[in-house]
């Protein structure tokens, strides 16, 4: 019989923990690039490993080995701390999400609120990084990061509160467990699902809402001065954010690791995560970019009332 401590250590470092999450992040990046390429009638990464599946790994190691430039004018401490901070903050919420079982590795009543808080902190860290790099493009990008957060944050929170009200639990694991006995919340709360999906797209800064890093107007937005190791960490944390967005949708609205006939619940979680990443990439390939004022206007005029309407319907 293996002692409980060793099992917990293995869980933290190997299977639902660090190693698995790294693989998941790289896999989601590859799938995203490949899907967008297919939509545009291209092949996408092809020669790096089988079907180019090692492409994100190659990008990561190449960036790690490159020169790490810190601009003279930059605030050196903040500039160096921000990539690590963003990576840590975007990885932490993934431990609160039940992936292989009905309860997560760490869970307590109220971890949904912790997840929302951490997703906001990530944005603040991004803003600090943009400000510390003292580049005119990154400053504009940073301001847009903050402005966009003012738009999508509130409807996203309201949309995520919907499942919490229905299941009378403020923890993600509790919401998943209540869907195990009831019905998936995507069926009872389709409006909330749609609002959460759009807001998460804005949180991920993906194409209809990629105003903060709009490549054709402000070069690379808030990322513009980061190079080498820092860029590698930031890109990795963006992949973690994608995984986090997908798994939040899966566990709040699609029933988490619940299923009928497959042997292990994590298989279900993985399949649903793939569906969510497919939706997110699909939208990325189909839309053009909004302007920042259009993002804010849309979020306040349409998303917030819709999210509130969903809450009213849930409460009634």
């Amino acid at each position, binding site marked *: 019989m293996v002692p409980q401590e060793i099992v917990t250590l293995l869980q933290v470092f190997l299977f639902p923990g660090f190693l698995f999450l790294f693989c998941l992040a790289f896999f989601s990046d590859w799938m995203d*690039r490949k899907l967008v*390429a297919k939509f*545009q*009638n*291209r*092949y*996408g*990464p*092809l*020669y*790096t490993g089988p079907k*180019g599946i*090692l*492409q994100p*790994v*190659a*990008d*990561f*190691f*190449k960036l*790690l*080995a*490159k*020169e*790490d*430039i810190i601009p003279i004018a930059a605030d050196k401490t903040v500039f160096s701390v921000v990539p690590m901070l963003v990576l840590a903050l975007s990885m932490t919420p993934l431990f609160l999400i039940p992936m292989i079982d009905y309860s997560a590795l760490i869970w307590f009543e109220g971890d949904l609120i912790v997840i929302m808080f951490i997703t906001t902190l990530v944005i603040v860290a991004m803003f600090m990084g943009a400000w510390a790099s003292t580049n005119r493009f990154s400053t504009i990008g940073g301001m847009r990061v903050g402005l966009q957060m003012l738009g999508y944050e509130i409807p996203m929170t309201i949309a995520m509160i919907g499942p919490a009200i229905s299941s009378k639990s403020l923890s993600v694991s509790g919401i998943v467990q209540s869907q195990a006995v009831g019905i998936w919340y995507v069926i009872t709360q389709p409006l909330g699902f749609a609002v959460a999906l759009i807001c998460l797209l804005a949180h991920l800064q993906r194409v209809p809402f990629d105003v903060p890093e709009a*490549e*054709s107007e402000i*070069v*690379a937005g808030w*990322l*513009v*001065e*980061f*190079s*080498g190791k820092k*860029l590698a960490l930031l890109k990795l944390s963006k992949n973690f954010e994608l995984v986090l967005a997908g798994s939040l949708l899966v566990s709040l609205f699609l029933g988490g690791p619940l299923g009928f006939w497959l042997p292990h619940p994590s298989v279900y979680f993985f399949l649903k995560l793939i569906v969510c990443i497919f939706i997110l990439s699909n939208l990325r390939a189909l839309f053009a970019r909004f302007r920042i004022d259009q993002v804010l206007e849309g979020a306040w005029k349409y998303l917030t009332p819709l999210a509130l309407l969903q809450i009213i319907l849930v409460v009634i």
Partner: protein
Amino acid sequence: MVAYDLAEGKETGLISWARAKSPWILHFNTGSCNGCDIELVASLSPRFDLERFGILQKGSPRHADVLVATGPVTRQAKNRLLRIYEQMPSPKSVIAIGSCATSGAPFNGSYNVYEGVDNVIPVDVYISGCPPKPEAIIHGLLTLIQNWGKKQRQQ
């Protein structure tokens, strides 16, 4: 000044593999007539799809590995070309696309051009043609990547 200092002998096999598999390019027009630029864009487009080799086009010089320069370097573009080259992080290479970028071609002897990118910054690969076909551009990029590998094996 060397064009790339991959030859420091510090890299392991993993890193040189990673470098060869994901060269990100930065396109800079040093006074070209847009012919070569269109061909470069065409080689990134669905028909030729440079992303098969892991090649992405990046906007910021801080993110790029390979500077792709098109056109004879005009006096106005010279300082900007130098600056962009200096802004790129260290293992970096330069590709000159088109006859103008190689030698100045029809502008040779003109008063307002520098007659080729290699009069300003060191160049690794020259791709001739006016404009070169996308196949030629892909061949040039892959030649560059293969030469990275050779340089390291000699060390």
